[in-house]
């Protein structure tokens, strides 16, 4: 492998630090790391705080425009092709899994992105949280294979 290829492979891998970092910035600035804010958003029937809907709307809009502008005309900058989900079927695992996730999200006010983003801010709480989440992922992927 030539020096250039080693460099470009190094670049291709490390460049993901940037979107990861931007994602972390966005989560922190928008208040997604504050579980009380999440619970306030979910308390539709009691002093509802709808502001977090703007986070999702903003995220979806930017993502939609970016994808539209780019996807049909180009190959990705650092990959040969896009890796997009292909499944279309509305099946039992989709509904059951999402329903379970919703309960978990509401109990603590955390979803996976904010768990990762807050791990260094409150390590003693979020590091065990992170580990148990991983255990749940492993159990879940085993169960899904049998569905």
């Amino acid at each position, binding site marked *: 492998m030539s020096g250039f290829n080693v460099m470009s492979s190094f670049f291709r*891998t*490390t460049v*993901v630090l940037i*979107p*990861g*970092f931007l994602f*972390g*910035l966005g*989560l*922190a600035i928008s208040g997604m*790391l*504050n*579980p009380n804010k999440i*619970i306030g958003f*979910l308390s*539709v029937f009691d002093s509802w705080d709808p502001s977090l809907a703007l986070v*999702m709307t903003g*995220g979806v809009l930017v*993502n*939609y425009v970016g*994808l539209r502008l780019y996807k049909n005309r180009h190959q990705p900058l650092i990959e040969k092709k896009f890796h*997009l*989900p292909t*499944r279309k079927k*509305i099946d039992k695992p*989709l*509904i059951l*899994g*999402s329903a*379970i*996730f*919703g309960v*978990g*999200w*509401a*109990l*603590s*006010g*955390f*979803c*996976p*992105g904010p768990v*990762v*983003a*807050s791990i260094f*801010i409150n390590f003693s*709480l979020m590091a*065990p*949280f992170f580990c*148990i*989440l991983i*255990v*749940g*992922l*492993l*159990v*879940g*992927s085993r*169960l*899904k294979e049998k569905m």
Partner: protein
Amino acid sequence: MGVSGILAGLVDRHKLKLWRLLFLLGTATGPILVMFLSKKNIEVTQVASLTTMMLSAFLIGLGTAIGSGCTSGHGICGLARLSVRSLIAVITFLFTAVATVYFFK
């Protein structure tokens, strides 16, 4: 495509690890910069008992693995791709989350 998918790939021996780790490292350090620049602490509070928190963590992992995605995967990437599966997933987890808060908080 979302964070739960990236995490699942991290513990799947058939999937590449390094870019996933780096993405997550970026996500975990971004908020540190926000605290540094704003000179304000970000409160990451515990809103329930430790047992409930750990139950929550397990259910989040379990549910996102079975349901193939979370708020970022289905909610942001999926909706932006106009995926019907993701729309159904988002409606489902919002419904159970709102119901959980209504009955238990």
